[in-house]
């Protein structure tokens, strides 16, 4: 049947394949640093198109897990399933913007080779609107506040139509008001683009507010202590119960 397919059809076929596939699964992964075994036959499954949070004590390999997924950290052994042909974006703890480029140029930096100029312009405009920075496109990062820079980083992460977005404590160190604003904007942008998001955090409130699933990890060698599945809306008492359970698990 494949031989009957024209080139165009083949492209739609592979694209459809991409659509039906698939959750992201890390299966029996092993990762050691010298003698220290961080992951020993560890497995975890991230469902497609939802926000999944990972919570755990310091040093439980949360960031390493993200680095393994985006392939900046090599595995000793194990499989990653559902990553083929998938593009990955990352929102780091720090905005990591290029100080010599304007806000627009910073977003353009990651999509320059992907789309023609006109499309780049439209994407940037649209994203700046969503992150409420439409009037700051020509500003340099040094002219923006920390929260604004982080919003640019969010826009950048969603600009390249990646399938998976990794977030590493992106709201850490911000005051409560600013954090709530960023979470609101992140939700807004996520609803619009609906991607698979893996969100590493220390902050239980952030995790409950944002995610559909929460994994609580143990200290090394790492395993999943508990997996929470959350409703879209829940009462204050439910919220508090989940929070209490997570606190107990981490302690």
């Amino acid at each position, binding site marked *: 049947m494949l031989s009957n397919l024209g080139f165009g059809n083949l492209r739609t076929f592979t694209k459809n394949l991409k659509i039906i596939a698939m959750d992201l699964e890390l299966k029996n992964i092993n990762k050691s640093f010298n003698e220290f075994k961080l992951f020993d036959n560890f497995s975890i499954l991230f469902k497609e198109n939802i926000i999944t949070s990972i919570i755990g004590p310091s040093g439980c390999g949360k960031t390493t897990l993200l680095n393994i997924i*985006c392939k*900046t950290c090599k595995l000793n052994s194990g499989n990653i399933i559902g990553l083929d042909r998938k*593009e*990955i*974006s*990352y929102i*780091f703890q*720090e905005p*990591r913007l*290029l*100080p*010599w*480029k304007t806000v627009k140029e910073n977003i353009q*930096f*990651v999509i*320059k*080779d992907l789309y023609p100029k006109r499309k780049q312009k439209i994407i940037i405009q649209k994203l700046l609107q969503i992150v409420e920075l439409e009037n700051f496109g020509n500003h*340099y990062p*040094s*002219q923006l506040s920390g929260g604004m820079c982080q919003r640019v980083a969010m826009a950048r992460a969603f600009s*390249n139509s990646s399938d998976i977005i990794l977030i590493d404590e992106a709201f850490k160190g911000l005051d409560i008001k600013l954090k709530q604003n960023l979470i609101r904007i992140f939700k807004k942008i996520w609803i619009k683009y609906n991607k698979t998001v893996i969100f590493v955090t220390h902050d239980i409130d952030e995790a409950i507010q944002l995610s559909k699933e929460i994994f609580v990890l143990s200290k090394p060698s790492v395993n999943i202590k508990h997996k929470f599945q959350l409703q879209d809306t829940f009462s204050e008492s439910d919220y508090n119960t989940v929070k209490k359970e997570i606190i107990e698990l981490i302690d």
Partner: protein
Amino acid sequence: MKVSITKNKIYTSISIILMILVWKLASVFLASDFILPSPEDTVLAFVNIILAKKFFVTISYTILRGLIGFSISIILGVVLGIFSGINNSFYSFLKPILITIRSTPVISLILLALIWFNIDSVPIFIAFLTMFPVICTNVTSGIQNTDTNLIEMAHVFKIKKYRILHEIYLPSILPYIFSGASSALGFGWRAVIIGEVLSQPQYGIGTFMQSAQTYLIVKDVIAWTIIAVIISYAFEFGIRKFENFYKKP
């Protein structure tokens, strides 16, 4: 801020006036044009030199030698500096060569250059040897100090290597290139003039300084020195202007 700038200018002026005053007093005390001419005589000599027919040819030759040496140093310094910044083995290979060049006295280099090269190339060669290591070392440390977080970000977003070099490394090392160029030129002018003094090309500030010294015309030696200082300042000023032009907020 404005007040402190005016205040600084006052102090600078006082310092210059004081230097001239000490010079004047010393010349009166020594009372010999062969040892130390007065500032007025030197100014007269300065004006005479500037008005002389061959003045522009003379300084043009010196500037040209400096600029040729500088251009070769910038090109090689930036290219090799980038390589040694991103490749540790090349850094280990280049380091001893740079250290050897830097720690060899300029005079030894000139004496060897006088044997190896023709007269006109000696000052250029010396300028290159003094400027190249400074620029190269600066570029290397610029690359080594480039924010690794930005590089990691670029890798995650699958940015092509040449774009990482062009859009992250190059802007990061630009301040290092400018500061390297600025201090290299400081050394470079001195080296060019020393080279000219010893190799005696037909035209050059050093050539005229040497002949003034031979005939004990001290005011001419000082006047040429002042000209050399002005040229050096002018280039440093130019580099700073160029840097400000490239600086982004």
